[in-house]
């Protein structure tokens, strides 16, 4: 390793008859942004981020090629343009992400306070929002109930889908081999990955309506509960858990299993003691990805859990709100239409910030757990 890189670098050093200073691409990039901003200002009469960005990208690529071609020769110039294009694509991919985060943090952060986190929408009416907009009172209402709903429904969905998903993956990898059942399951999992989330919601709602109609025909509308929503989310979660776990389990070296068998350990014990511990960090990351995927679901929750305004800790009775449905409802159908709708919008942004933070915390937690549980390498 060391020797190769040494020779490459020494050879390249010997070839650097003419090379631009290291800082050149950065200088060119900054210069093209300034020029683009100037053109946008002169051409449009105002500063436009979009126009500047597009122009800067184009000017940068042309300038890099021209300067490099003149000084270093064509081969180097093409290489530099390729580098520039790839980096520009990377920056471009970051733009929506950063802009979204910035918007959420700036708009949500401005509105977010402890009151919003600890209050619900019980007793919320338009007059309170009108007072807030007129400056007579603080922002009323909150989404404590939605945070509780999000956490409960997601945890319930995990409790249902993680065992099913992980066990299905174990079957596929350890037992199925190439038999027909295994192929059928793989095919079905692939199909399930693609079903739209609203279909999952309708499925769960239809299922529980039918059950409710059979068991308690008198009671109207008891099928909409947090648990129904959890089942809908499980339908979305299971295929992701199966897929991710399957990939991770296939990465466990066959040698480990064979070593275990050679010592006379039965198959189930090999799976529990050797295969799962080896892959536990990967499985957990897979589960986290699945959670992050379903925690932001809106459509299936609306169909299955309704829009609750009050705090509800019971998954099996009564409506529940989650953060996504809360955001959707606040933004689309404000408590007070007209001028005071801005208050609903502020609550929605704050809820969006909390949702993003929740997903981020989950991801970090999974990273930490994965790191702690990962088997030490080179043992």
């Amino acid at each position, binding site marked *: 390793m060391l020797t190769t890189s040494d020779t490459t670098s020494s050879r390249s050093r010997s070839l650097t008859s003419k090379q631009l200073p290291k800082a050149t691409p950065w200088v060119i990039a900054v210069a093209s942004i300034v020029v683009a901003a100037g053109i946008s200002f002169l051409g449009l009469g105002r500063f436009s981020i979009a126009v500047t960005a597009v122009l800067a990208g184009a000017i940068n690529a042309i300038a890099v090629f021209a300067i490099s071609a003149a000084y270093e020769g064509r081969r180097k110039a093409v290489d530099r343009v390729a580098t520039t294009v790839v980096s520009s694509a990377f920056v471009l991919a970051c733009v929506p992400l950063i802009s979204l985060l910035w918007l959420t943090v700036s708009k949500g952060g401005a509105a977010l306070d402890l009151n919003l986190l600890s209050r619900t929408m*019980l*007793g919320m009416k338009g007059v309170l929002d009108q007072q807030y907009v007129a400056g007579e009172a603080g922002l009323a209402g*909150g989404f404590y109930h939605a945070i509780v709903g999000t956490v409960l429904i997601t945890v319930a969905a995990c409790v249902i889908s993680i065992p099913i998903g992980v066990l299905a993956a174990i079957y596929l990898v350890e037992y199925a081999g190439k038999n027909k059942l295994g192929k059928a399951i793989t095919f079905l999992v692939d199909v399930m990955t693609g079903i739209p989330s609203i279909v999952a919601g309708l499925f769960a709602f239809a299922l529980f*309506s039918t059950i409710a109609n059979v068991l308690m025909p008198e009671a109207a509308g008891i099928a909409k509960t947090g648990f129904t929503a959890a089942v809908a989310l499980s339908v979305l979660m299971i295929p992701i858990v199966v897929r991710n776990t399957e990939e991770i389990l296939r990465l466990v070296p066959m040698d480990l299993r064979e070593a275990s068998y050679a010592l006379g350990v039965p198959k189930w014990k090999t799976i529990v003691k050797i295969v799962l511990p080896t892959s536990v960090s990967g499985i957990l990351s897979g589960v986290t990805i699945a959670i992050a995927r379903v925690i932001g679901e809106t459509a299936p929750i609306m169909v299955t859990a309704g829009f609750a*305004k*009050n705090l509800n800790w019971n998954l099996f009775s009564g409506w529940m709100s989650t953060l996504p449905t809360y955001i959707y409802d606040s933004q689309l*159908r404000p408590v007070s239409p007209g001028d005071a709708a801005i208050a609903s919008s502020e609550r929605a942004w704050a809820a969006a910030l909390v949702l993003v933070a929740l997903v981020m915390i989950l991801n970090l937690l999974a990273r930490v757990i994965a790191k702690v549980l990962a088997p030490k390498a080179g043992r």
Partner: protein
Amino acid sequence: MKKGIFVKLKHLAPSAALLAVGALTLSACGGASATGEDTSGGDSGLQGTITGIGASSQKAAMDAWTADFATANSGVTVNYSPDGSGAGREQFLGGNAQFAGSDAHLDDDEAESAKEVCGPEGAYEFPVYVSPIAVAFNLKGVDSLNLSPETIAKIFKGEITNWNDKAIKADNPDAQLPDLPITAVHRADDSGTTENFAEYLKEAAGDAWDAEVDGNFPKEYGGEAAQGTDGVVQTVSDTEGAIGYADASAVGSLGQAKVKVGDQFVELTPDAASKVVDASTKVEGRGKGDLAFDLARDTTESGAYPIVLVSYHVVCSTYKDQETVDLIKAWEKFVISEEGQQSAAKSAGSAPLSADLRSQIETVIDSITVAG
């Protein structure tokens, strides 16, 4: 190996415990209401949950009603899912909700199938929410504008294109109308506001409006399109010489046209808006508890403002147990009460129902009974 995992889990335990404690503290404080105050003041002895599904137009009013109702009856939870009028009627007829909110009354087929869920008397329906639609304009120096339905139709059709048009002048002899092109702003999205506005023009403007009545504004009529109520109001506010239609609660400080009814020009007021319901006739061939109205858009009743959206509640004539009957009665009576209507007017900008209509509705609500 296994022991190793458990040891590692032990390291995680304190932080997990901290998280749990944090969550519990958060749950312990906070009144879990919108204002942080304890709202469970009035306990009427009623217990239970009422579920309604239906029109999103009622959502703001429904928020006000449920808030006030919950304050007086702390044991009752009222859920309302604003899935749309059609969804509301369907779910109600399917037995998935105790009441429905709907911008249109049940049609004959639906009224018939309601008998399956609600017993031989079928469903009771009554207006609960009247929301006036304003024709808002932005003209410097013109505060008051009179418009006849024909003129409104021609403006939105693109046939009258300038504010100094003869037809407008004829209705506004005193106004200083500028030589300015008219920008007619309409909703770009499918909306109940557009449907009611078009229905009014279809009935009141005669041949001038020849498009089908629909939630979508007829594309062939041209004009400026804006997204949502806020979009229309924003566009009209930003454009000198613009005119648009929007929910009266949303137009703010824009000028609102007076509309010709009979031979008068009627200003938009809550009273004028609820008057049109009083001037309308009930749909024929329905049960005694059915207060569905054919809105008299072309009414000549003096002082009635005919561009309104009327939204109904649909309930069953009979429910299967006394508990539900008591709940529904208390709830619907609150909705149509003076207090409930005023609360909705303040929060949602609706027009309170007239005392006469309210007493009619109360009789209907009183006749809800247990199936038997």
